[in-house]
């Protein structure tokens, strides 16, 4: 590890799901990818191309069939046990009987933080996501966007160096979504965490990412990696010509090869 420390390496990874009846799904085929520390990577591609699977392999929620994955130089299992990553899914997945604060503190509680430290950390995070006034509310009293913010705060609770996010904004309306994207950009600049971000939205991927990884299905593989080099990511970028170039590049990459394969990707 010298000049550019590496967060995640994925080397020639295959993932085959075997159903009990013996049917096989080749979810990932010969996938290789390297994510630098602090880098924001988006995975984009049509439904079923293995985006979630790739993320789950990195998180050690599923096991690889062949190849190798390292997370901060360790096996995914070791990284999971060391709490090296934070994770957020499409559904906020808050526990309904816990208050907003208690939901944010869940990982801290599980990992044996002192109550005082937990409170301090959750205060910070509540401030960060702008929900300090809602600390004692229950999830069913929040809007979808607020819930998602809580889920993101929870994933940040232990200051992970790596964030894994599977369509965290998928269930949000366009306005909330853009707002959340802005917040996420600010958060990442603040924390310096590397992010692997799964999305169906081309503009979202382009707006957020240092690199967009385009995948295609059957078997799931990486077809192209598009570098984006914006000087700043703010509201102005959304109107910028460079942004539209990025969108076009990603769209072409998605539609290249097989046009039909790009179904299921939102062009918004």
């Amino acid at each position, binding site marked *: 590890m010298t000049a550019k420390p590496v967060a995640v390496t994925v080397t020639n990874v295959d993932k085959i799901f075997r159903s009990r009846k013996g049917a096989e799904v080749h979810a990932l085929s010969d996938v290789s990818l390297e994510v630098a520390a602090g880098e924001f990577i988006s995975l984009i591609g049509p439904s079923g191309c293995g985006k979630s699977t790739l993320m*789950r392999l990195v998180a050690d*929620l599923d096991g690889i069939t062949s190849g190798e994955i390292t997370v901060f130089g360790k096996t995914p299992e070791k990284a999971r046990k060391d709490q090296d990553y934070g994770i957020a899914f499409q*559904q906020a997945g808050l*526990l309904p009987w816990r208050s907003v604060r208690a939901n944010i503190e869940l990982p801290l509680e599980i990992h044996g933080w002192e109550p005082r430290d937990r409170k301090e950390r959750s205060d910070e995070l509540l401030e960060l996501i702008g929900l300090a006034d809602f600390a004692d509310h229950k999830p069913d009293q929040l809007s979808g966007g607020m819930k998602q913010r809580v889920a993101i705060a929870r994933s940040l609770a232990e200051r992970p160096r790596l964030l894994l996010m599977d369509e965290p904004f998928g269930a949000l309306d366009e306005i909330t979504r853009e707002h959340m994207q802005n917040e996420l950009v600010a958060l990442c600049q603040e924390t310096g965490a590397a992010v692997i971000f799964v999305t169906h939205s081309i503009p979202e991927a382009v707006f957020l990412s240092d690199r967009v990884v385009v995948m295609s299905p059957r078997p799931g593989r990486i077809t192209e990696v598009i570098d984006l080099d914006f000087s700043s990511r703010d509201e102005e970028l959304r109107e910028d010509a460079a942004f539209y170039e990025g969108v076009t590049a990603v769209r072409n990459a998605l539609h290249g090869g097989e046009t039909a394969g790009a179904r299921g990707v939102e062009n918004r």
Partner: protein
Amino acid sequence: MSKRAAAVLWGIAGVIAALAIWEIYKALGPDEGVVIGDVTVLPRTTDIAMPHTWDVLARLFEPVTRAAGADVLWWAVLQAAAFSLGIAALGWLIGVTFGLGIALLMQRWITAESAILPWVVLSQTVPLIAIAPLVRRWGSEITIGSFQWENWMSVAVIASYLAFFPVAVSALRGLKSPPSADTDLFRAYSASWWTTLRKLRLPSSVPYLIPALRLAAANAVVGTVVAEVSIGLGGGIGRMIIEFAATASGDPAKTYAPILGAVLIGLVSAGLVALIGVGLRRYTRGGAPA
């Protein structure tokens, strides 16, 4: 609040309606009941078969028997009811503990589920009448030091046998209810099985458990009353129903007193379980499961 008041009013209205139907049928129905062919479809309306509701009530305040020093009837019924309720409560507690334990076992090990679940279901097809003498006989062979198996313990065991089933089945469903996104999250936190149980699975199973606990309470009460009869344990409502029924022709109103006692046990046990539900209210926020 007004919602609760309405519920109470409806409850009272229901009781009054039941009493009214009783009296109206008694007043209008034929003495020998409604008979179609050889089958009596509605009971006789004589005072022996259907005493007036007010006679039943008045009877509660007279002595149990004409013997000197006999307790007043309601007091005797209340004591018997308390005795049966105590046994039912013990049976319920054992049954719930056992049911939860089995559910945990089945959740923890898939093989345990396929090995145990069929037996759990099968256990409930054995009629109570068949197991009561068995339990009594096995129990009578247990003597550990000064400990001596007694009949009331057999009754409690039988009550627990009926109570454990709904708890085992519902608890298993509840323990398995968290969506995979939640269990994945706990795995991502490398939470132990125990932590996942405490912070995720048990809280998620509360909405499934509350109705099961209520059902278990009803089963425990029925089990206690029936087992008292088939094991021959005195002192409870079950035996009292049988004893008083023997005097039905001479004192028809008295027969209904222990039945009122059984209803009382049912109400009290349902109330106690409802209290548990109130205590666990915060875990049922998402509303009851389908």
